[in-house]
């Protein structure tokens, strides 16, 4: 594309298909302790 650069794939909907395993970090506890930011956590898969 000439006018638009897309930085990533549109993957959120797809992530529901195999998501929800529950093995990822559950809270802010092991990093910041006061302000949970879910999107900066990593997926276990």
């Amino acid at each position, binding site marked *: 594309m000439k006018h638009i650069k897309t*930085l990533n794939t549109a993957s959120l909907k797809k992530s529901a298909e195999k998501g929800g395993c529950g093995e990822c970090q559950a809270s802010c*506890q092991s*990093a910041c302790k006061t302000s949970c930011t879910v999107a900066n956590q990593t997926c276990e898969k």
Partner: protein
Amino acid sequence: MIHKYRLNGYNIIMDVNSGAVHVTDDVTFDMVGDDGGVSMPDMEEQRRKYAGKYTEAQMDEAAGEIAQLVQSGALFSEDYYAGFAAKAISSPIKSMCLHIAHDCNLVCDYCFAAKGDFGHGRCLMSARIGKKAIDFLIEKSANRRNLEVDFFGGEPLMNFGVVKEIVEYARSLEKEHNKNFRFTITTNGVLLNDDIIDYINGQMSNIVLSIDGRPEINDRFRKTAGGRGSYDLIIDKYKKLVSKRVGDYYVRGTFTRENLDFSEDVLHLWSCGFDQISVEPVVTSPELDYSLREEDIPAICEEYEKLAKIIIEMKQKGERINFFHFNIDLDGGPCIIKRLKGCGCGNEYVAVTPEGDIYPCHQFVGMEEWKMGSLEDGSFDNDKKQLFAANHVLSKEKCSDCWAKFYCSGGCSANNVQYMGDIRKPHEISCALEKKRVECAVMIKAALS
């Protein structure tokens, strides 16, 4: 829904439901319509609106590319997630904060733990309670394999023998129960020595080292009982620990109204040799002089922007620096289920006090009305657990239409209670800062792409 913003010379369009992020030129940025738009605007109307600003050819091309993205599900994508509420059920508990010591060898003025004892008197956790907590976690974790246990306080190194006993006990049960314990510890560093450094470097998957940044900033709040600043007591110990460390760590500071120029603290910590840095807004009573107020939001946002630009320059020079709140993985981050559920507080995650009392998280400890149970008498309030399970981002009125809902996932229940009196009402200052951090994090990705 889209969120569009300009920052540091970049035009960024985020498609909320698909997670796609686009960087565009000016004509596309204008033609795509308003921030918050939920469907492609009438392009004929847009052409008329911008007729004097862009050529017909430019607008034709931009409209064509916008239409392509809509077609591919990467712009104005559908909200597929409304049905999620019915699936917001209680989950296994797989994460635990152990309050090893409700006692502390520092008396930091801003401490949310009331100088270490959470307002309930000084007390150390026994190995017996710690082992009961591990048993509880194994039982409640059902088929979850990865279990997180954070050693917290007060100051956990004041009771380090019990930390080691608990680690050994949990490790002895891993194989039998098919569990993988990930231990972490949060320390003020005062009691670190070579033996402790080697032990925690060997056993902890993450270590959080508390320090606020520049010496005068750290020592303003982080003092010994005698009033001495702690910076000189800890800095060399942290350097030694990190020099020997292979795994994750964070040097973690707090900023208050008194250091809204906190990017200087991030840079100071980096100049000391630390490249994993977290500096966070203070959580404290709004009446206190150093608490963050609504009128501080513009200055804090400006500081986040300044820090983002500095980080871009550093990374372009090949320097290593990771600021926790700018972490974002646009392709491999959490799945949508996790993003909808948000923090596991009170559902997947609990905190245990030295007395064996169970709370939704470490920040709820001491709020009697939120106590969930006790390891001593075996009680556990499943109704409270369900309350937290149902507290997902779509259940919060102010979150459900917010562009940042799949990034912050509804924020921090403890902050919501402390400032708003309700786990479902997001704290407005926290929201404003979180949105700015996400915008900065995405902009950094755009700049480095």
